């Protein structure tokens, strides 16, 4: 996807203002001449405010950090936690790496697919969930583990998964 598809002017103004307000304290963490270092936090902020890191959001971040949109695109497409396309309302990311699967991660993957009526990773038709397998979450002792909307849940069983997903808004 190129950056021509959407410009910053297409984004809602009040959200852009909120983006600028919240970006200001983040920028203080980096030397004034190294603003581009804030690319990951800036895109993360954009994702939180606009839902995903669209070309327009990439252009916004690049503009505020004084760098090129291609630099923003390079980052947005490299890191798995940055979404360049819309996702479901809730993001469910299960680790199926070795330590988790030795403790039931693989079976949970099958369970989650069945529960959400998905044949493979992807979004439910009602747009409520996006389900995905992810790599090691650093929870190997308390395996299996998953992230739901970026928060970690550990020592999972099907019953726990039901309770966690059932408790979502």
């Amino acid at each position, binding site marked *: 996807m190129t950056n021509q598809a959407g410009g910053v002017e297409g984004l809602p103004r009040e959200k852009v203002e909120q983006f600028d307000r919240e970006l200001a304290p983040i920028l203080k963490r980096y030397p004034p001449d190294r603003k581009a270092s804030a690319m990951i936090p800036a895109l*993360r902020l954009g994702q939180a405010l606009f839902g995903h890191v669209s070309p327009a959001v990439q252009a916004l971040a690049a503009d505020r950090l004084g760098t090129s949109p291609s630099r923003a695109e*390079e980052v947005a497409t490299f*890191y798995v936690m940055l979404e360049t396309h819309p996702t479901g309302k809730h993001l469910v990311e299960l680790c199926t790496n070795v330590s988790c699967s*030795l*403790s039931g991660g693989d079976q949970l993957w099958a369970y989650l697919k069945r529960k959400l009526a998905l044949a493979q990773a992807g979004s439910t038709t009602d747009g409520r969930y996006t389900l995905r397998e992810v790599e*090691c979450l650093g929870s190997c002792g308390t395996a299996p583990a998953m992230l739901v909307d970026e928060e*970690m849940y550990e*020592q999972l069983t099907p019953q726990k998964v039901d309770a966690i997903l059932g408790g979502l808004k």
Partner: protein
Amino acid sequence: MSDTLILSARWGKPDSAALSTYRADGGYAALDKALGMEPSLIVDEVKKSNLRGRGGAGFATGLKWTFLPKDVRPRYLTVNADESEPGTFKDRYIIEHDPHMLIEGIALTCYALDIHLAYVYIRGEFARQARILEKAVEEARAAGIIGSKLLGKKDFDLEIHVHRGAGAYICGEESALLESLEGKKGYPRLKPPFPAVVGLWGKPTIINNVETIANVPWIVQHGGDAFMALGTGKSGGTRLFGVSGHVNRPGVYEKPCHYNLKKLIMEDAGGILGGRKLKAVIPGGSSSPVLAAHEIDISLEFDAVKAAGSMSGSGGVIVFDESACMVRALARLTRFYAEESCGQCTPCREGTNWMEGICHKLEHGHGTAADVAKLEQVANSIAGNTICALGDAAAMPVQSFVKKFKAEFLQHAELHRCPSGDHGWGLTQAPRDAVAGPVRYAR
């Protein structure tokens, strides 16, 4: 062997992450002591201590520090909290249970090396840990421990920031970490120059693992000799070993760095699930060559594990019992490396996908004996031919799994199915009660 605990001593105490708890337990006394010392003497103590990098490479920390060019300023410190190696889950507990120990370590390191700006690069998936650390840094700043004057008295300014990643195993590689911290994709840099000479924003930069830095307060407080005495040979101190997989009591155990691997698994971690037999052990994170059951009666000290044909790496021990399928396990690991290869070097970008494809074929009964040979050939073509160590890290599990469990790979090819049926991950696949030092996590 000593029972001294350096890293996990305060874990599990009420409100152990709070500044008041840390202070009540003598926290920041090492920094207070250091401020009366010549900075170079701190470096000398760390050199004497035989502290070696806990991130995986096991490089001598004090020696790394001396690579900084004498006359170039500014210098930076980046702390590597990108804990992403499968089987590794120790740094997170330092941050969760005792973040001020890390902050004191950072302050000491910065004071010793004349560094005034430090970043902790924490993996994006550690949202909670990042919040805990940010809160602790904020507390330290508000208490005047860091900021314009160290401990509110020494004319030495220090700022610490937490920088969250966004999901990329490669950013644990130190030069990829720097690229990421500069706001770019995580492509490792060609070395030399090493980061200690040309690092963050082109300036000399020291990159140390969380656990490495967390040891510094103890070393300053008790002396390098005392730390050295806890270990053996060229490795000093204790280490956090993570045990996961088919054991009764998975978790993180702090032990002297030359602790016995078999004892760690069979005694501390409670032995193998269901009384089954041990089949294989990955001793130091997924990249370290696998050991067969009869090879584990060894010291975990870096050089000892190397002598046994593997690596102590990040201290992440993954245990497989006899019901686990080695082809299935390797297939999952090759998928990890294919997914996480950054794509910069052709042998790794292409080779990891080839290895994943061949393992997948074998796992699902479509492979042949020629595929097993091809798998080894591809691994051998990646090793040593890439800019960073991810290529070797991807090749080593493949080379060792195929070498040590060749019969099982060939059986998959001949029978066109898994010889142990469809329970590829073993008979018991359920969460278990876990520990992190003195802390218990009931399932």
